[in-house]
């Protein structure tokens, strides 16, 4: 089957505007999470990984984005930076464009004065996707993936399949979500927001910390400049509850096993698992069970939510990109916020840097609607 390679990537968020800036911050143990005091989001202070005032405008100063929303600026900054690393162009008929997001321009809903006519057209996801595609003079209509918190990884898997099917030679996969009052109030209504920076897999975890950002990977059938090839990916559904994860973790485990098998690998080949690790009680418990079912209980596992918060539709992309950087350096990143084992099935989670000589990692995500996804990434040795 046609191999698919990752030939460029970018992360734009509180920790920087390039993959390198972001990875250096994470490697130093720095987090984008801070205490936010802004009555436009919530009456009480909350922890969130948010862009500093003016940060995004600095990143997009040369991008011609007057009148663009925060969501659109994030995407433009990320896609432009990734495209600059290659000769691949969105204006090429053979280049596809996939955008992943959960809430897109929902910020517009919050910016309207009471009683104003809502700009419903601009709030439609396809409207903003077309605007971004137009910004880059894209030859093809953008595809939009909106599958809750698994969207980013699903978008990568979709791009891979479209190249395998011969539909495109290259696919630009970009994802973004903005931390809004809309999303914050929703997670707060579930009592699911942690009062302190999130503590994935920890005994004292009490919920998520939200984040915002964008990330892009450029996929290609051409391996020049590629450090990674994509292994197999898989998606499953719990068929159990729309807002609570599986009781057994068997469905996420099934996706993990399909990804391993489809990649021709066994659990012994996997250097680490980059888990979803949202730090809610139920999610992390479910993931621990899934790791056991899949035979991955002793493999090092981490969650990057302590650095980025939960970036929703961007999470799978951001965490896959940081994990690729870690594997290139031969390290397993610590799980920031983790201190004391706190899931019923023990897993190999650490708060210190580990070393690995493996060339394969597994990225997993899970989300509302009972959805799970898992995908293998393979380091190409020089």
């Amino acid at each position, binding site marked *: 089957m046609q191999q698919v390679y990752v030939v460029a990537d970018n992360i734009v968020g509180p920790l920087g505007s390039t993959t390198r800036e972001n990875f250096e911050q994470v490697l130093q143990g720095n987090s984008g999470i801070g205490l936010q005091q802004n009555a436009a989001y919530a009456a009480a202070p909350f922890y969130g990984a948010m862009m500093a005032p003016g940060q995004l405008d600095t990143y997009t100063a040369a991008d011609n984005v007057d009148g663009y929303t925060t969501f659109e600026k994030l995407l433009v900054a990320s896609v432009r930076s990734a495209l600059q690393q290659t000769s691949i162009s969105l204006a090429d008929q053979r280049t596809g464009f996939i955008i992943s997001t959960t809430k897109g321009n929902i910020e517009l*809903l919050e910016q309207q004065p009471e009683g104003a006519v*809502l700009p419903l057209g601009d709030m439609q996801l*396809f409207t903003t996707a077309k605007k971004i595609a137009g910004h880059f003079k894209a030859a093809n209509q953008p595809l939009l993936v*909106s599958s809750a918190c698994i969207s980013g990884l699903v978008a990568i898997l979709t791009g891979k399949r479209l190249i395998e099917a011969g539909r495109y030679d290259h696919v630009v996969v970009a994802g973004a979500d903005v931390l809004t009052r809309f999303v914050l*109030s929703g997670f707060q*209504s579930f009592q699911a927001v942690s009062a302190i920076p999130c503590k994935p897999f920890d005994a004292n975890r009490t919920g998520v910390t939200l984040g915002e950002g964008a990330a892009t990977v450029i996929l290609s059938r051409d391996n020049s400049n590629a450090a990674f090839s994509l292994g197999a990916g898989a998606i499953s*559904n719990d*068929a159990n509850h729309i*807002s609570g994860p599986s009781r057994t973790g068997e469905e996420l485990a099934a996706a993990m096993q399909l990804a391993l098998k489809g990649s021709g690998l066994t659990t012994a080949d996997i250097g680490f698992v980059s888990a979803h690790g949202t730090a809610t009680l139920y999610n992390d418990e479910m993931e621990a069970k899934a790791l056991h079912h899949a035979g991955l209980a002793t493999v090092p596992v981490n969650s990057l939510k302590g650095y980025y918060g939960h970036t929703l539709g961007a999470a799978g992309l951001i965490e896959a990109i940081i994990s690729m950087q870690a594997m290139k350096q031969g390290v397993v990143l610590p799980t920031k916020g983790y201190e004391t084992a706190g899931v019923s099935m023990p897993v190999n989670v650490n708060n210190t840097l580990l070393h690995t000589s493996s060339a394969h990692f597994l990225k997993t995500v899970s989300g509302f609607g009972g959805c799970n996804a898992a995908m293998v990434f393979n380091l190409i040795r020089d």
Partner: protein
Amino acid sequence: MNSESAYITGSCIIRHNKVYGNGGLLWEAGQELELPEFLRAGYDRFSGQYPKFHKMDALSKLGWLAAEVLLKDTRVPLLPPEQVGMVLSNRSSSLDTDLRYYATVKDFASPALFVYTLPNIVMGEISIRHGFKGENTFFVSDAFDTALMSSYPAQLLAVTPLQACICGWVEVMEQQYEAALFLVENKPDGMARPLTAEALSSLYQTNK
């Protein structure tokens, strides 16, 4: 993708307060019914024994109802759970429910509404109802993309464990709504036509 190994084996289209199964009119409700009343009447007509229906938002109710009609008398419920999946799409994502949810934020944000502010929840509800554990993905596009909705499910039937996939369109925005779900399988059954963009388009345009 080669369409020889993928077939459209059933369809359910719901629009203009009418329900069509495999192209034929199954039921027609009064045109005066607004969407919530129409969905309730459709539930009574085609199911009536699933209390969880009443807590769903309009998008999930519509997709759930179309799936009830689509799957009746098919072999799909007999397949292993991990071999049935979904690829659905629409125009307005969950915007209709987003507006309803945000209207509650000023006073007391509603968790019951917030959970429906994602378009893929309708796939979760259908999966729960029928026990489907195969893969599912939700796409958003300004119109029903018959090219994507034929080629991508065909590829899934060829390269994943899926033996059957529900694909199509489920859209709600205020009083505008439309569902067009298709059952696609890797074995011919039922109405069995090769899965192509033209075939999907033709079925979708009928009774439009």
